[in-house]
C-alpha cells in the first residue's frame, strides 16, 4: 500500500517528510521525499517506501511512463493533494491537472483489489469548489464530497479593512513605498484597537485605479 502526498513547494514537502518520517516510524511505515532535490541514487529506497511526498512536477516526470511500472502504481491507494487551488496557476496548474487525471486513469486501469484510489484534496477558498469536487470523482463517477469552511471557522475573528492609496504614475515607486511607511502608525492607531494587527501591502498595478 502506498500513499502519495503532493504539495506545490519543495520546502513544504521537506517539512512534511521530516515530520511524517518520525511519526510513521512508530507504525513501521516509511516516508520519503521525492522532489527535484532528491538524489537519484535513492530511487530504490523511495520506490519501497509507504508514503511518498512529492511535487506535481516531479510526480509528473516519474509517472509519465507509468505503464512500465504498473506493479508499483497499483499499490497506490490514497492520493493527498495539498493546495489544490494552485490548479489555476498557469503551467504549474496544468501539471497538477495532468497528474490528477493520470492517477484517475491509473486507478481505473489497475485498481488495487476492490479498493479504488481515494483522493483527498485540501485547498484555500475556491469560488467553484463543486467543480473541483466533480472533477475529483471516483472511478464510478461519484463526485467527491465537498466541505467548505468559511470565515466563521477562524478561532479568532478578524475584522478586515482595505485601504487604498493610489500612487501617481510620475512618482518613483520607492518613494511611494516610503510614503506608505509614514502612514503606518496612523493606520494602526485608527484600526488596531490595541489588538494584534497584520498589515499586508499588496502592490498591484492592476488595482491602482
Amino acid at each position: 500500500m502506498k500513499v502519495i502526498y503532493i504539495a506545490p513547494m519543495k520546502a513544504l514537502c521537506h517539512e512534511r517528510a521530516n515530520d511524517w518520517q518520525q511519526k510513521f516510524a512508530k507504525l513501521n511505515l516509511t516516508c520519503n521525499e521525492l522532489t527535484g532535490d532528491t538524489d537519484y541514487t535513492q530511487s530504490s529506497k523511495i520506490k519501497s517506501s509507504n508514503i511518498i511526498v512529492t511535487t506535481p512536477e516531479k510526480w509528473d516526470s516519474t509517472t509519465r511512463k507509468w505503464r512500465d511500472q504498473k506493479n508499483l502504481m497499483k499499490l497506490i491507494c490514497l492520493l493527498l493533494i495539498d493546495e489544490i487551488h494552485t490548479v489555476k496557476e498557469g503551467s504549474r496548474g496544468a501539471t497538477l491537472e495532468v497528474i490528477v487525471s493520470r492517477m484517475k486513469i491509473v486507478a481505473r486501469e489497475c485498481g488495487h483489489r476492490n479498493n479504488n484510489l481515494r483522493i483527498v484534496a485540501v485547498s484555500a477558498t475556491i469560488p467553484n469548489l463543486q467543480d473541483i469536487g466533480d472533477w475529483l470523482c471516483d472511478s464510478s463517477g461519484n463526485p467527491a464530497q465537498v466541505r467548505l469552511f468559511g470565515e466563521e471557522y477562524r478561532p479568532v475573528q478578524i475584522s478586515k479593512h482595505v485601504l487604498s492609496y493610489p500612487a501617481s504614475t510620475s512618482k518613483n515607486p520607492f518613494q511611494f513605498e516610503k510614503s506608505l511607511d509614514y502612514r503606518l502608525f496612523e493606520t494602526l492607531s485608527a484600526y488596531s484597537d490595541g489588538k494584534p494587527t497584520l498589515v499586508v501591502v499588496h502592490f498591484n498595478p492592476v488595482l491602482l485605479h
Partner: protein
Amino acid sequence: MSLFRLENQEFEIDWEQSDNDFIDYSHSYGRNSRNDLNEFSHFDSGAESSHFDNGLEHDFIEENPRYDYGIPNYPDISANRSSFLSTAHLDQRFASFFSFEYFNAVQSQSFDLMYHSTQNVVISCIGSLFSTYRQREDSIAGASDIKCTKNKP
C-alpha cells in the same frame, strides 16, 4: 491552506482564555471526556481484533458503522469543548500522532468523513490574509464584510 499546517496553527490558540464568553465549561467538558468514551467501544474493539501488520494493510473502515459524534454544527467554537472532537476517537496508535487533545473545529467537522468513509474529499478552508484580500472585489460589489476605504494619494 494546508491541512497539516492547520493542525499546528489553529490549535495553538488558547481559546479557553482568549475569550471572555467561555461559559458552561465544566458541564460541557464531560461530553468529550474519556469517561464518555465507552459508548465508542465498538469502534475500538473492531480495530483491535483486526490483524494489523503493516499499519495500513487491513481495512477496518468497513467494519465500523458511521457514528454521530454529537458535534454541533458550527458556530460554537469559542464557547465550549463539546464543539470539538477528542483525539481519543482515533485508534490508539494514531492518537499519539497529535500533540493536542482535541481537534480544531475544521478537523472535528470533517473527522467522520475522513476517517469512516472511503469517498473522495475536497476540503476548502479560508486561509491566508491574501485570499481575504482577493475578496476585495466582492466587497466592492457588496458581497463581503470587508470595509474599504479609499485614500487620497
